[in-house]
């Protein structure tokens, strides 16, 4: 335990680095004079301020702090940043309302933002600054059922508000009551969206059963519908509707048997993915002329071993690869597929968790990148081979070692110097490396890596107050 420091040391280290991303990472664990210093650093350069306001990784507390800025472009970027917290959005709305945004329209973005508080959305509706803003709210899942109902009440007053029906129909917060209103006055597209909605009431599903519109039928077939309705839909001319029947968990064996003869390979592909297929159906689909049907059978977890064995000789290499990837594939088949003349198939064997060490040792002698990447990823690969692969000139192979949960500290250590910044970034969270090892990442030439490292130490500081 050589490294043992306090939050202040980490914050001081970030301050002395002069790097705005380092300071952003530790802002959450700073206080008092140090926090003020960090704020001054962030606000000193407009370029950095603008970048932090739109950066996807900027911590929430920093975005909150940035909402103090009076720069209209910083404000705009904050309104567009999906991570900006509710409190900051409220502050920005108030500033915009007072005219501080200097003509830059923030309200539409605040109305769209998923973190905007429902109360604020209600205020925006009442201020009513125009159709686009109200429409943004109708699409926002943060708007509750009550607000959406209010927007729907605009529609009978003016034709232009009819667009709300379509957006509310797709809004996950729409209530059953709202969906009923929309369905009754909607066109086929709107009705289809209502039927697809998770909150669609049973009453509307019953109504849709007699609907002849194909868009409605396509959505209806994915819902829990009565068996007689499914039987009718299985006869439908539209392939997508029949695909829906083939995928529906409630579809009975009698209908599955019927769909086996379907002329569309798309329907048969859906059947091949089912987890309730009977052995006779699987044996029939394994001989399908469409290679994707056979591929889905080869991937299916319920496929019997004797079928997997037949498919391991399939003419299509993607089918053989699917056999090798199947979690039920026995070692004896993996041994055979490890000698396949197609590298893509051997690669699947290398990635397969059931592949024994001796098979991986053999595959490690290959030069193919896909095969070696699989060996590097596999938890059964011996540490000595992982150490060799960690030094590979191919970044995909080295990444395999980084992703391998069994790669030990000594194996991973050389990868802290990997030329590809993303690899170094991935090591920041690796539990096999300790804080001592990760300290060097705080000095990394890439700002993304430095930020991740400082964030990791700051997170550690929040949870334990010491680095161990």
């Amino acid at each position, binding site marked *: 335990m050589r490294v043992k420091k306090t939050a202040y040391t980490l914050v001081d280290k970030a301050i002395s680095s002069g790097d705005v991303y380092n300071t952003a990472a530790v802002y959450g664990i700073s206080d008092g004079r140090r926090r003020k210093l960090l704020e001054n650093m962030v606000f000193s350069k*407009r*370029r950095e301020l*603008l*970048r932090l306001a*739109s950066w996807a990784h900027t911590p929430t507390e920093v975005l909150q702090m940035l909402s103090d800025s009076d720069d209209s*472009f910083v404000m*705009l*970027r904050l309104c*567009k940043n999906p991570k900006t917290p509710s409190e900051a959005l409220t502050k920005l709305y108030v500033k915009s309302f007072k005219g501080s945004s200097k003509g830059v329209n923030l309200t539409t973005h605040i109305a769209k933002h998923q973190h905007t508080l429902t109360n604020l959305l209600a205020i925006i509706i009442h201020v009513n600054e125009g159709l686009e803003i109200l429409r943004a709210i109708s699409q926002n899942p943060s708007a509750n059922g009550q607000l959406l109902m209010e927007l729907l009440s605009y529609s009978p007053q003016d034709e232009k508000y009819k*667009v709300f029906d*379509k957006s509310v*129909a*797709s809004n996950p917060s729409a209530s059953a009551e709202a969906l009923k209103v929309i369905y009754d006055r909607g066109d086929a*597209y*709107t009705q*289809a*969206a209502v039927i697809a909605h998770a909150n669609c009431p049973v009453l509307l599903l019953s109504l849709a059963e007699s609907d002849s519109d194909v*868009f409605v039928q*396509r*959505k209806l077939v994915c819902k829990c519908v009565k068996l007689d309705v499914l039987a009718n839909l299985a006869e439908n001319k539209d392939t997508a509707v029949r695909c829906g029947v083939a995928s529906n968990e409630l579809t009975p064996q009698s209908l599955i048997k019927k769909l086996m003869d379907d002329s569309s390979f798309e329907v048969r592909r859906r059947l091949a993915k089912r987890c309730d297929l009977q052995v006779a159906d699987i044996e029939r689909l394994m001989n399908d002329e469409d290679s994707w049907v056979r591929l889905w059978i080869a991937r299916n977890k319920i496929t019997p071993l004797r079928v997997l064995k037949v498919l391991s000789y399939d003419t299509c290499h993607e089918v053989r690869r699917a056999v090798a990837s199947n979690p039920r594939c026995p070692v004896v088949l993996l041994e055979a597929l490890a000698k396949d003349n197609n590298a893509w198939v051997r690669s699947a064997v290398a990635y397969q968790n059931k592949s024994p060490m001796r098979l991986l040792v053999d595959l490690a002698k290959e030069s193919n990148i896909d095969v070696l990447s699989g060996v590097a990823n596999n938890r059964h690969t011996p540490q000595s081979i992982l150490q060799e692969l960690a030094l590979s000139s191919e*970044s995909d192979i080295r990444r395999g070692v980084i992703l391998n949960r069994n790669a030990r500290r000594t194996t991973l250590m050389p990868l802290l*110097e990997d*030329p*590809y*910044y993303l690899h170094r970034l991935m090591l920041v969270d690796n539990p096999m490396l300790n804080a001592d090892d990760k300290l060097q990442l705080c000095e*990394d*030439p890439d700002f993304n890596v430095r930020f991740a490292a400082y964030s990791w130490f700051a997170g550690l500081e929040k949870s334990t107050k010491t680095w161990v």
Partner: protein
Amino acid sequence: MKILVAVKQVASLDEDFEMRVDKKDVEEDFLLYDLNEWDDFSLEEAMKIKESSDTEIEVVVVSVGPVRVDESLRKCLAKGADRAIRVWDETIEGSDSIVIGRILAAVAKKEVPDMVFAGVQSSDQAYSSTGISTAAYLDWPHAAVVADLQYKPGSSSAVIRRELEGGMLQEVEINCPAVLTIQLGINKPRYASLRGIKQAAAKPIEEISLADIGLSPADVGAGSSMSRVRRMYIPAKSRAQMIEGTIVEQVAKLIQIINEFKGA
């Protein structure tokens, strides 16, 4: 033997931006700077020649620009370039790509390289003329959009393949020394090693003035350029139309539009 690689630090835009007061460019705070993508490939091509050669080859990178350009030059040093040169003088501001070619040619006359590589184009301005104008000022042969290069250091000629329209390649034998503009995909550019980055941080960047290369302020800048930027602006939106409706409706309308275009 020496290869001179001309590189540029290019600017990219980050979503919303403000125009400069003179309306001739974007306000600098909104620009993100990085090494031009094409230049990564031309540097790698030079490095490949250096690393596969029995004779000693010096790879020198050169750029025209203010101090911020040092960051891009260091990136090249980290990848293995032996030296880096930056040419700057306030009077260079406003120069067009032809004048930049004149400056690069002046550097080449001073450095006396056996080959000059440049990117086909820069991602921000896309004139595709800097490399070619450099060749013109040097009075050297040139080849543009080079997708493959076979060159033995010291040879009096090289064989190149140029990328043409329709997937065609044109094989050309070119006399050396020559200026080649290198196309993306000619090789797989390396990442700089951490060791390389640390070493590059300690290496000097040679800052040279116009006088050092025999030019005067009268030879550069907007006044000496054959073209000048009058204004930069976003044109008013015209024919674009958002497809409205539910997702199913949008898809149906999209299919209808495609069918109409196909005449179906």
